[in-house]
């Protein structure tokens, strides 16, 4: 099994390339939520994403299969990659049900894995999925469908915050009479202000995309509290409170030959030959907004960061692990297995 170096590319384009070369393996897409697309000789046989319930979740959450039945099939068939075939051979599912379930799961997970314009993507050559090949889907059809689904959501309600933020219903509906579909009802009843759309999809065993679709519809009707974070939430970093001596990025470099005798303590800045202080960085908008009688929040003086640039080390803290997608997929599998043991 070989692993290509992690690249930051369009996952959809890499899928097309891999499919064109009729390769076999798994495309692991990092980021949030990320996911994995399994390819067998250039055709997609499975896809999974932490934001989309997999075949096991769909079948067990709905009660179609008992957790024990699913776990038995996993125990028997995982090593030989024929979990799907076993379920049909043992008479737990019809071939039609299995195919429809797998097709639904593929397109659902593919939406989350392939919709980012760019993400860190790995291709693990030779990897196969334990479910085994149940259906073979043309990658071009998947790419087309993913971009169509992205557009469909924006037609309903063009606000992507709804897709990821915890779901909370408004306490008072904005109109006298409200008509809900049964899925919308289910979502509202289970929305507790903590669960994200992905949590709700897994909890209810509903397709992740269908969940988001209904949430956007309800947001358009004004039935959901919209999260207050801005759309560019991904780049929003909460800065630490200003403390007595905050790490000052603009501190002039003290060269030993310039100030050889001064001990390096709190007084350094005052005694070192400081050049003219650079002009204040443009104020944070927070400062203007706070009223005159409120405490003025003065953010610690940091060099103004260019969008997308990395924070200085002392502020940024721990960098996220490199292959989050892989970890999440693994954790999800462990959780499925644990749930089946209950």
């Amino acid at each position, binding site marked *: 099994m070989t692993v290509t170096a992690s690249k930051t590319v369009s996952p959809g384009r890499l899928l097309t390339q891999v499919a064109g070369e009729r390769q076999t393996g798994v495309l692991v897409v990092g980021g949030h939520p990320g996911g994995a697309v399994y390819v067998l000789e250039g055709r997609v046989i499975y896809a999974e994403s932490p934001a989309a319930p997999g075949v096991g979740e769909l079948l067990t959450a709905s009660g*179609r299969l008992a957790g024990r039945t699913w776990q038995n099939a996993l125990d028997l068939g995982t090593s030989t990659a024929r979990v799907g075939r076993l379920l049909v051979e043992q008479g737990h*599912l019809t071939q039609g049900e299995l195919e*429809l379930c797998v097709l639904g799961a593929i397109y659902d997970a593919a939406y989350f894995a392939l919709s980012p314009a760019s993400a860190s993507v790995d291709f693990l050559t030779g990897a196969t999925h334990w479910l085994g090949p149940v259906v073979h889907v043309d990658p071009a059809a998947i790419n087309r*469908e993913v971009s169509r689904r992205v557009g469909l959501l924006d037609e309903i309600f063009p606000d992507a915050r709804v897709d990821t933020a915890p779901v909370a219903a408004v306490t008072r509906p904005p109109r006298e009479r409200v008509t809900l579909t049964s899925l919308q009802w289910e979502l509202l009843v289970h929305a507790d202000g903590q669960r994200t759309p992905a949590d709700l999809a897994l909890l209810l065993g509903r397709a992740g995309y*269908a969940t988001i679709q209904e949430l956007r519809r309800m947001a358009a009707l004004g039935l959901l509290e919209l999260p207050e974070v801005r759309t560019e939430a991904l780049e929003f970093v909460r800065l630490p409170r200003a403390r007595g001596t905050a790490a000052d990025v603009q501190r002039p470099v003290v060269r030993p030959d310039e100030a050889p005798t001064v001990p390096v303590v709190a007084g350094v800045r005052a005694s070192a030959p400081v050049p003219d202080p650079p002009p204040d960085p443009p104020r944070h908008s927070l400062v203007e907004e706070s009223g005159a009688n409120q405490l003025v929040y003065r953010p610690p003086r940091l060099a103004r960061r260019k969008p997308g640039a990395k924070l200085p080390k002392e502020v940024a803290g721990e960098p996220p692990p490199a292959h989050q997608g892989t970890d999440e997929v693994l954790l999800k599998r462990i959780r499925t297995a644990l749930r089946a043991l209950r």
Partner: protein
Amino acid sequence: MPGVDHCLQEAMAIPGAVGASIVDYTTGFPVATTGAAPNSDHEAAAAGTADVVQAANSRALYVSALPHDLLEDLIITTAGGYHLLRMVQTDFDSRLVLYVWLDRAQGNLAVARRRMQKLADELVAS
């Protein structure tokens, strides 16, 4: 064991059948297709199918007239053909509809409806 492809083959064996597909009606996506489609475009036909089913399901009041009164099928007749939409009820979460396009002169509405009911049931029942 009848799979999706087998189901569509059987649908094409209905007298007068011109084309058939299984459509996800929340996204308007053709999960599987065979034969002809109106305007030779299965994807556009699927999107239209989804609109029709959504309209009947959520915007028309027929469906919720009685408790547990679920939508079974929709029949659209045109001068040249019959368009039959049969809901496929799965236990797991899915929103699928079986669509068959019949030629008006050769198709028989009652026969086609019975055959589609059987097909949709066989697809998901063991």
